Every structure is written in C-alpha cells, then in structure tokens.
C-alpha cells in the first residue's frame, strides 16, 4: 500500500465519521402526547432473598442500587391515560434507551415483549441496544399498569432507563436516532479500528517493524472492546467473557506502551517493569472476582492503572529526545483523551444512576487514538521507504564507483602488461640480432678486413645472416608448439642455400603432436638450434646428402639431422656449445655422434606436461 493511498484512506474515514456524527446532535423534543414514566415500585429478589417493595425513580442503575449483587426484580409503573390517546387510531410505543440484562414487559396484563433468560444469571445474552416496543393504542386504559420483569447481573450495567410512551409516529424517530448514535456509530468506530489494524498489518508485511505489529494488534483488540458495547449475544458466558475482554484490554495497554516507546524513545527499565506488572495484574484481578465474590481487586487495579497511566503521561511531558515533535504531541493528547474518557466511563457506569444509558465516551477517544496510530505508522513507513531508497541509491553509487576503480586498475594493469610484453619482445629481438645477424655481420667484416677470405666465403656469411633475419621474421608468425610449421619454414628458407651447396636434402617429417613446452621462446631456441646444426653440416661436413627426419616416439618428439660427410672431429666449437645451451634451455636431449658415415645430430623433445617451468 502506498503512502498516497494511506492518506486517501485517512481522509475518507475522517469524512465518513463526520457525516455519521452530524445528524445525531442531541435534540430530544417531546410532544405533550408523549409521556415519560419515572415512578416505579420495585420488588427485588437478590441472591434468592426477597427484598421489600420500595418506590424508586427511573432510571434504575443496578450496579448503583445493588452493587456487586445479582438477582431479579419486578418494576410496577402506574400511570394515567396519556393525552389524546383515547381516540387514537395509530399504534403507540414504549421506548427505553437501555434495559438490561433480560426483561419481560407487560401492559395491563398483556405481555408486550420478552428478551433473554430471566433466571440464568451470567447468561451469554444481554440486551444492550435501545428498545422500542409498539402496541395498539386500545391497550391503554384510564389507569394503566406497566409491569417490567428484569434480571440484573452484578457489574453488567443492568437496569432500566426512563421510559417514554406515546404514538409510534413520534417516538420512532427518537429511537432511530438513539440506535444510530449508539449502535451504528459504535460499529463505525469498531470498523475504523479494524481498518487501521489491517492497514498496519499490510505495512508490517512489507517491513517487519515492531511499531506496525503492535499497532495492528492494539487496534484489533480495540475494535473488539468497542464492539462489546453493542454486542448482545456474546460468544462466552459473562464471567469468561469479562476475563477475556479484560485480558485483551491489558494486551492493548501494552501495545499502547510499546507505541509510546517507539515515538518517545525507550522508557526506563523500572517503568517498563511497572507496566508489565500492571498488564499481568489485569487478568489476575478480574479472575479473582468470581472467587472472592468481589470486584474490589479489579476496581483497585483499574484505579491504580489509571494512576499509572496518568503518571506516565506526566512523565512523557518531560521527554526531550525521540523522533518527531508532532507525533509526540498527537500521541500524548490521544492517550490523555482516552484516559479522561475511560475515567469518565468508569465513574458513570458505576457511581451515578442518572448517567445510566449514556453513550460511552471511550470509543470515540479510542477512534481518535486509532487515527493517531495510523498517522504515525504511515509517517514512519514513508520515512523508512525514503531511507531505503536513499540507501539503495548510495549503494548504487558505491558500486558504480567501485566499478570505475576496477576499470581503472584493469586499464593500468593491462597497460603495464603491454609494456612488459613490449620489453620482452625487444629483449628477444636484441638477443636474436646478437646471436644471429650481429654475429654473422661481425664475421663478414673480419673476413673482408683480413683480406685473405675469398669473396664467396664472405657472401656465404652474409647470406647466412639474411637467412637468420628471415627466420626471425617467420618465427613471429609461427604457431606456438607447432614443430611441423617450424621445420617447414626452416626448409623453405634454407632450401636455396642447401641447393647451391650442391647437397641433396632428404625430408622425412611425420605429422607431429603439439609440443607442450614449445613456448614462444622455446620455438626460437629450437629454430636456432636446428639452423646451427644445418649450417654446421653445410659448412664443415663436406657431405652430398642431408637427411632431416622427425617423428613422435615414446612421448618424445625426435628430430634427427644426418649427413654423409666426413664426420665431426671437434665437439668443443662455439656453435656446438650454443646448441647445447639451447637444448638444455628447452629441456631437450641433444646427442651428437658420428654416423656411418658422417655425423648424426639427435634431438629429443619430451612432450609430457611438466610442472617445473623450463629454463628459458
């Protein structure tokens, strides 16, 4: 439910309440044809003991006349014929704003109405709503006797209000007004509380806040308490129902206290204990009533709790911290109003018979408090939502910032990685130049300067340096680990030189598997190693055939270069030393042995995944 919708609800309920209240302003106008009966003779039987007949004035307030006693009574009201009733053709009516708990009404020996069980003390049913009984005017005579039989339960607001008698046409509007004011308005108040309770429940479903839960419980209880005022057929017998209702009211008080804490801030520990004790005492004190046959414990509790609440209200005036001044002021006045109404109702219902039949104030005060709850709750909900949104926004912002940082870090890392790669590449090229072209050029220079080397030898040296360069360029495009491609490029580049040396090349290259350790650098080492071996054969072997074979055997790539020349004499030359170094760098096994005839250079590349990084 959105906050806007909640506001609409509040507005609608307020308008509805105003519309309901407006027509029921007190305006009881009596025609002279309507008479009011207040003089009665009462004969009561209290606890099985017949009391002597005494004259009384209505209204009869049982709890005032027979405090804490139950019994039955017969009221006899004698009256003269009402004016103009002799010729009246219209129906007449007897009207009482309240008569309780059970009754039977007789006019001149004719039974007009009966309601409830006249003998069963504490019966579930009790009359609570205004009573109007129509009868034909011809029942009226010159000297009339109205007989009312009554059952009165202790502390159950039994009794009879002043009786109006007159034409139905005139009395019925009065009855209808009283009904609207008491019954309809009470139901409206209860409905309002139920609505507030449901509203708080919905909010609680969204945000599991203590405030919403207790407001929901409190308002639901309040609705039942208010309904009790007009609820005639109770679900339990009087004693059990009273205990239940008082217990519910105790829970309601605790709910109110929790809400006060939510608005005014946490209360001191001793005060919370006092409140808890008070709440627990409610069901205990009321449960004691039937046992000790006295309402004194309960009344004491009621008085003390009123005092405690008054004290709490006074203490709340001095609270400085806490949220929202408007919330505090509203809640304070709401509670104060209810306290006053509650005290008024308690006093009215117990002490003054003249107040018998008056509407109960507390229900209106309770409705105002309920609206206050709703206002506080919806305000809190709105705040909480705003906070959530803000939190959400700031989280998003933080994520965005983190993302930016990450991107920045990544950019810096990749730039560093790139520059590292460039440096590595540069080092590789420099090494290649140093070992290959550089060395060749230096040799060519020496040959030229010495003046003794023939031109063909210098050309050979230079050609070799060009081959070096071409192979270096090929190596940039060689797929890592593809020994076949490496050998093919080597042949493609060296073919003219081999051919011009007048040597036949035998090529026996199988399809080889991917060389696991053939990293970029490993490939370069292998390429240079083989180039060195072929150059050696071309320059020193004096051979006519050169055979290169490659195959995969026993998890090794075996490369063999064989010539049919004069064989190798000295294994300590610079070229051979470089070959050994490169072989060990790629973890290869290099053997150089005399062939029959010539020289056989064998290279074994292990091709099993190894954990140790090769020395490169």
């Amino acid at each position, binding site marked *: 439910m959105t906050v806007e919708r909640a506001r609409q609800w509040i507005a609608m309920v307020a308008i509805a309440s105003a519309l309901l209240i407006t027509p029921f302003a007190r305006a009881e106008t009596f025609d002279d044809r309507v008479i009011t009966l207040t003089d009665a003779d009462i004969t009561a039987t209290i606890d099985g003991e017949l009391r002597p007949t005494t004259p009384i004035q209505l209204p009869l307030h049982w709890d005032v006349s027979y405090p804490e006693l139950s019994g039955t009574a017969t009221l006899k009201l004698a009256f003269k014929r009402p004016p103009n009733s002799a010729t009246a053709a219209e129906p007449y009516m007897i009207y009482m704003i309240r008569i309780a708990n059970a009754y039977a009404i007789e006019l001149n020996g004719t039974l007009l109405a009966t309601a409830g069980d006249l003998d069963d003390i504490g019966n579930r049913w009790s009359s609570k709503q205004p009573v109007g009984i129509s009868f034909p005017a011809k029942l009226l005579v010159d000297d009339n006797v109205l007989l009312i039989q009554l059952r009165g339960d202790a502390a159950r607001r039994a009794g009879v209000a002043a009786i109006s008698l007159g034409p139905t046409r005139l009395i019925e509007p009065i009855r209808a007004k009283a009904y609207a004011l008491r019954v309809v308005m009470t139901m409206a108040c209860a409905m309002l509380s139920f609505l507030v309770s449901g509203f708080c429940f919905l909010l609680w479903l969204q945000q599991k806040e203590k405030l919403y839960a207790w407001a929901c419980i409190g308002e639901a209880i309040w609705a039942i308490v208010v309904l009790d005022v007009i609820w005639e057929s109770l679900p339990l017998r009087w004693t059990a129902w009273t205990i239940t209702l008082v217990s519910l009211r105790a829970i309601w008080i605790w709910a109110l206290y929790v809400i006060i804490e939510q608005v005014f801030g946490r209360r001191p520990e001793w005060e919370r204990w006092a409140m808890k004790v008070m709440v627990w005492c409610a069901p205990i004190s009321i449960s004691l009533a039937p046992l000790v046959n006295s309402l004194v414990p309960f009344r004491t509790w009621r008085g003390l709790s009123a005092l405690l609440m008054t004290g709490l209200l006074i203490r709340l005036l001095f609270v400085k911290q806490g949220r929202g001044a408007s919330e505090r002021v509203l809640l304070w006045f709401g509670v104060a109003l209810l306290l006053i109404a509650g005290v008024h109702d308690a006093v009215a219902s117990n002490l003054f018979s003249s107040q018998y039949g008056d509407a109960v104030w507390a229900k209106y005060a309770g409705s105002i408090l309920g609206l206050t709850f709703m206002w506080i709750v919806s305000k809190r909900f709105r705040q909480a939502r705003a906070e959530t949104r803000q939190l959400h926004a700031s989280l998003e912002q933080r994520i965005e910032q983190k993302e930016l940082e990450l991107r920045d870090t990544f950019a810096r890392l990749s730039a560093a990685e790139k520059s590292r790669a460039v440096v590595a590449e540069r080092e590789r090229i420099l090494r290649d130049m140093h070992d290959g072209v550089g060395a060749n050029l230096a040799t060519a220079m020496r040959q030229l300067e010495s003046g003794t080397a023939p031109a063909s030898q210098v050309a050979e040296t230079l*050609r070799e340096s*060009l081959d070096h360069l*071409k192979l270096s360029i*090929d190596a940039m495009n060689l797929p890592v680990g593809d020994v*076949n491609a490496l050998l093919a490029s080597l*042949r493609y580049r060296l*073919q*003219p030189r081999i051919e011009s040396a007048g040597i036949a090349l035998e090529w026996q290259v199988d399809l080889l598997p991917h060389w696991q350790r053939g990293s970029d650098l490993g490939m370069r080492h292998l390429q240079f190693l083989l180039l060195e071996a072929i150059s050696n054969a071309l320059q020193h072997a004096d051979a006519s055939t050169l055979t290169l074979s490659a195959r995969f055997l026993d998890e090794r790539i075996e490369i063999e270069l064989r010539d049919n020349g004069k064989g190798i004499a000295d294994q300590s030359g610079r070229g051979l030393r470089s070959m050994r170094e490169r072989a060990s760098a790629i973890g290869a096994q290099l053997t150089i042995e005399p062939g029959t005839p010539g020289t056989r250079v064998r290279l074994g590349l292990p091709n099993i995944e190894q954990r140790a990084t090769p020395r490169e």
Partner: protein
Amino acid sequence: MPDPIWRVALLEDDKDTRAYFERCVQLHSQLELAASFDALLPAMQWFETNTADVLLTDLALPDGHGLTLIKELAQRQPTCDILVVSVFGDEDTVLSCVEAGAVGYIHKDSKPADVAQIIVDVKQGASPISPMIARKLLERLRRRTTDVAPVHATLLSPRESEVLELIARGYAYAEIARLQGVTMHTIQSHIKNLYAKLAVHSRSEAVFEATRMGLLASMKPGEG
C-alpha cells in the same frame, strides 16, 4: 612450338638492385626487358600507353608506395602478372600485396637463375604455395569443417587435403609426387583444382579469393 617471349617491366629505386634484376631478365632467353623505372610516377605514366607480361616492383619508392601501381594494374591489365621484390617475404607484406593484386614475390637475394625461373614459372601457370600459407589454409578449412560441415566438408578431396598437408609439413612438390606415387604434374593440377573449387575463373580473382580465404598463391616452395 617455340617458347614464347615474356616482356618484363621493372620498378626499383635502388640503382644496384635494379641493375641486378635487369641483368637477371636479360640473361634469360625467354624474357625481355620492356621498361625499367626508379620511381612510381614515370612507371604509372608508361603503363597508361604500354603493356607488359610481368611487372617486378619494389614497395617503398621515393614518390609513393608500390601498392598504388599494383592495385591499378591488377584492374586495368589483368594479363600482367605482378611480382613484388622483397627482402624478407614476410607473411604480412605478402598478404597485403596479394590483396592488392600481386601474384607473389621474389627475394632480393635470390640468385639470377632463380629470379628468371620464378618469372617463367608464373607465366606458365604455376601456382606454388609456401608451407606457411598451406598451413593457414588447412587451419581455416578445419575450422570450417567443424563449424558448418555440410556446406564445406567437400571443399577439398581427401587427396587434395593430403597434398596441402604435406606442403604445410615442408615437403616439396616432387617429394609429394613420389610419396603418393603420382607425377609432379598431378600435384600441380591438385593445386590448380583448389582454385577451381573456390569457383574462381580468372587468375587475379583466384588470388583475391584465395587471399580472402587464407590461401596465398604464387609462392614458390623449395623444389625437391
């Protein structure tokens, strides 16, 4: 039937290199030097009114880049085969030249007889490919076979695929012919079939298509 004479035009800014290539052409009985230039502009002007069978061209020229002439000539004179003079014959340079319309390259350090032979071979329809390019082609075909097998699986016959594979492993045409028990001519025709299967008719289109597909034509592998 007497051997035809091929007219060769030369564009090379380095005086010694130009002289060297001029001599290579002049020494071969089937070749005739039609024109020789040291800059781009005069060469382009010459081609506006003249034709040649072969153009040997350098790339870095004092007044422009050789690619300009290659592109124009490939369009205007498709019968003129273009060979690029290169020091290294590295893949990237060769690829861009073939894209522009060249059919291959000649190393600057090639021996005179080799230079002349490459020119004559190209004019006689040889379509040699280097092992490096053969490997690239195989890679691409394999990828295609796994991707969209039904469409391209039949692009190469098993025999053609084998030939390509042996070239990629460094074998020369003659060796492949011996290994497979066929003639050198059969191998040449397998290579030619590759062009046919690419559904290409003219030579320059074939080169263009081959380049597009990763096949680089007119590179001379080692002869075995």
